[in-house]
């Protein structure tokens, strides 16, 4: 549904987005991750038809965003990063206006507006003017505006910013539900959000794509090692004994409050938990905790984006 081919975006100085290509199939919910200034908003604005790409070809539902801009824009519902409503307009009125701009048939308009207000949990403020709403409500009014014409593709730039935890959960549910019949690309800083909502993840840093795949794939690929943590009662020579276990690469040991804590790093794909347990029994150590640690998306994200930063810096030097 979204095809990006060798897309580059330049303003002044180094490119904000540097020759990226990716493709998003129909019906996928894709999380777009990256540190601030990585090029997320630039990319989303180009997809939405707000900016023209410096180079490259971008197709939305088969329509080129430059040559067939109107057709491409019709296929998209876009929630910009900075939500701006007309403060003097009532919510219902605003959504009717958005429906008109999107070319919704007049006979469908009232029903569509009521429907999106229901879905985005803003029916209670339908007759209020936008200027009096809280940030969370404004955000949802803008989201409703992006949905009112039932576009096959949604581009949401940080859809849950400014919402309270309860609203965040509701909006995530809504996005998931929308993703069943639509293609969704959403950017966010909130990593748990990606794991909760997205089927696919795209990590961008300094204008380059540095990671791509399902959240599970990225987690597995990202860690590069399997980690086990254990805690034993008393002072025990854990490092000396446990380093004999097959596959163990490194052990950190700390002794505090009459406990010995170890962090064991083993080669990728090797689970040393059972071996650690057996050693503890043999040596008659009292084990208080034993846990395998899976890499979180956060670890992966930090690793991918900082590694790239290091490379970029050494490249500049």
């Amino acid at each position: 549904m979204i095809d990006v081919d060798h897309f580059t975006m330049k303003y002044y100085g180094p490119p904000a987005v540097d020759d990226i290509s990716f493709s998003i199939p129909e019906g996928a919910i894709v999380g777009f991750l990256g540190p601030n200034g990585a090029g997320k908003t630039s990319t989303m604005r180009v997809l939405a038809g707000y900016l023209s790409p410096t180079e490259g070809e971008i197709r939305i539902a088969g329509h080129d965003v430059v040559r067939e801009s109107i057709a491409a824009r019709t296929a998209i519902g876009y929630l910009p990063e900075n939500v701006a409503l007309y403060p003097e307009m009532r919510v219902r009125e605003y959504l009717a206006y958005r429906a008109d701009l999107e070319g919704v048939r007049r006979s469908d308009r009232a029903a569509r507006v009521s429907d999106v207000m229901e879905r985005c949990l803003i029916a209670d403020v339908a007759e209020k003017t936008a200027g009096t709403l809280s940030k969370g409500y404004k955000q949802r009014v803008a989201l409703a505006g992006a949905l009112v014409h039932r576009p096959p593709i949604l581009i949401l730039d940080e859809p849950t910013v400014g919402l309270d935890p309860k609203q965040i959960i509701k909006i995530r549910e809504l996005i998931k539900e929308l993703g069943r019949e639509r293609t969704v690309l959403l950017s966010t800083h909130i990593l748990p959000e990606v794991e909760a909502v997205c089927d696919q993840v795209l990590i961008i840093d300094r204008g380059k794509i540095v990671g791509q795949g399902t959240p599970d794939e990225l987690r597995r690929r990202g860690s590069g090692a399997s980690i086990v943590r254990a805690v034993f009662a008393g002072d025990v020579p854990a490092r000396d004994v446990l380093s004999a276990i097959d596959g163990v690469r490194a052990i950190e040991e700390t002794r505090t409050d009459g406990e010995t804590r170890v962090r064991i790093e083993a080669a990728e794909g090797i689970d040393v938990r059972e071996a650690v347990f057996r050693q503890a029994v043999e040596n008659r150590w009292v084990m208080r905790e034993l846990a395998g640690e899976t890499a979180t998306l956060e670890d992966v994200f930090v690793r991918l984006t900082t590694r790239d930063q290091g490379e970029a810096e050494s490249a500049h030097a």
Partner: protein
Amino acid sequence: MRKFFAIARREWLSYFYSPLGYIVLAAFWFVNGFIFSTILGYLSQPGARSLQPLATIFNNTFFWIFMLFFIPVITMRLISEERKSGSIETLLTSPVTSATIVLGKFAAAFAFYAVLWLPVAAYALILNHFMTIDLRIVLSSLLAVLLLGAYFLAVGTFASSLSKNQIVAAILGFVMIIVIFSAGLVQTLVNDPAVKDAFSYLTIWDHMDDFARGVVDTRHIVYYVSSAALFLYLAQATLEAKKGQ
């Protein structure tokens, strides 16, 4: 067309959501009412000649002050406010061409401007009830007012596309209108007959005199309509060029 009306309607309503629209209406209606009552006073004197009383409304200092100062105020908000608040992003990512956006906004400003002149039409009818006036002159004068208004409003729309700051947009519009208005003065300063001729074509108050005498010259109409179209085109081009800034 639906999209055009949606934009024009929103813009039109926003004149009445802020005090600005009411201030402009009140000020303009007050001044025109005052001029009308002066005309009535003059007509009431015994032996007054009453050939074209209404032409005075379109050709007095107040009229020109209004055109120069108030038109940039009517148009200053059109594009600059959307760019400042960021709502332009939503507008430009909707399936609407930038030409439709500019025309819709201009249409709203023009409708507001036309409403300003409604009382004058009423004055003509009132006068017509008590005395014989030449309604053709009234119509040609109103036509002139609408054409000139369209021209200056288009200039103001262009000015509004240039800046995110409404005050800057208003000042730019004012300066551009002053320059256009003053272009006619050049004809008094040059001797070359060709140059003199060219600038006399641009002399707006001479055009207005013609209209006020009931002369509808198609050259004047072409001048106003084509100039308005030029400035609306410039506004549209600026809107496109400033995307994302």
